[in-house]
């Protein structure tokens, strides 16, 4: 688990660098592309409801987004955590997504 968390920190840090320094040069798509949000949503949708890795990823990603933004610390973290909880507690329980079921 610790190894997985360390890999997440490195990958999310790299995403942050790309989001703040590389993608802004590519017009509006580059400006609004949020790799951390996409990855967190995908991870939470793909993993089992009992697993916690998606939530941990939301915390790591949210914290790093807070570091590279001008808002108070905790805002992006709270948003990502709420999205992850919403996916785990509601979408995974009440919505059936055929593609995800196959996985």
């Amino acid at each position, binding site marked *: 688990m610790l190894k997985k968390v360390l890999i997440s920190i490195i990958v999310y*840090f790299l995403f942050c660098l790309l989001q703040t320094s590389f993608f802004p040069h590519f017009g509006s798509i580059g400006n609004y592309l949020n790799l951390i949000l996409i990855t967190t949503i995908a991870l939470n949708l793909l993993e089992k409801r009992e697993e916690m890795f998606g939530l941990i990823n939301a915390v790591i990603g949210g914290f790093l987004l807070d570091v590279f933004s001008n808002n108070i*610390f905790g805002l992006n973290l709270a948003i990502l955590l709420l999205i992850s909880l919403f996916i785990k507690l509601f979408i995974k329980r009440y919505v059936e997504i055929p593609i995800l079921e196959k996985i």
Partner: protein
Amino acid sequence: MFSGKKTKKNLLIGGIALIVFILIINVFSSEARNFFYKISYPFQTSLWKAGNVTSNFFYAFFKAKETSKEVDLLRKKNQELLAKLALMKEVKNENEKLRTALELNLQKEYKIFLAQIIGKDVNQNLIVIDKGEIDGIKQGMPVITCQKSLIGRIDRVYKNFSKVLLISSKSFSFDVLIQTRDSKNDILGVGVGGGGSKAYIKFIPREKKISENDLVATNSLGGIFPKGLLVGKIKKIKRSDTEAFQEAEVELAANPMNENEVLVITNH
């Protein structure tokens, strides 16, 4: 999910620890951000330059037709400007003589500081530069391009880095002067950011005549910027018979996404 006493207890402890951590880090937010920018600085600088080169390559690749049209247009403009330049040279010579006589020069007018752009804020309309408190950067200092076009002003200062609020930001407003073709009738207005890469000029009296391509420069009335920094040119004019003021969309002269370095005016 989250069933079992032990899991619930662990989650509760984890949640409380997270809240405490966030509260503590908010107290030291400047130091924490400065630390992270320091770690990422070398990577961000390289990525910013790589992004600039890559986007330029793709722009040339996908918009070859538009580019060739633009080149033709620029060639024509260049010829016009060369003609004007010949006239200006004479004026320049005269000016230089006067300047020497008055012991003035541009560097004395502005004390400037070269800084490198290392990234853009996640929430847009802010860029990060590699100069901070230890370099003498202070909040509110104007930031311009090397061609002396306005980019924005210093919004937050960390120990080694600063954040620049771009003039296109919606929370930005400043006094501007519209330089009409009839140079005797320069018009005052209020420049406001429109988000993205847009900016508008508001509160232009309806009876004043402005036209597209009129130049827009800063005005020192508000005390935010020195007078005469180029903001851009008028792109679109919105007039309404029912309103007392007209509004104009400005095509900004500077695009920070195409720049690697900026200048900070430190003595304004």
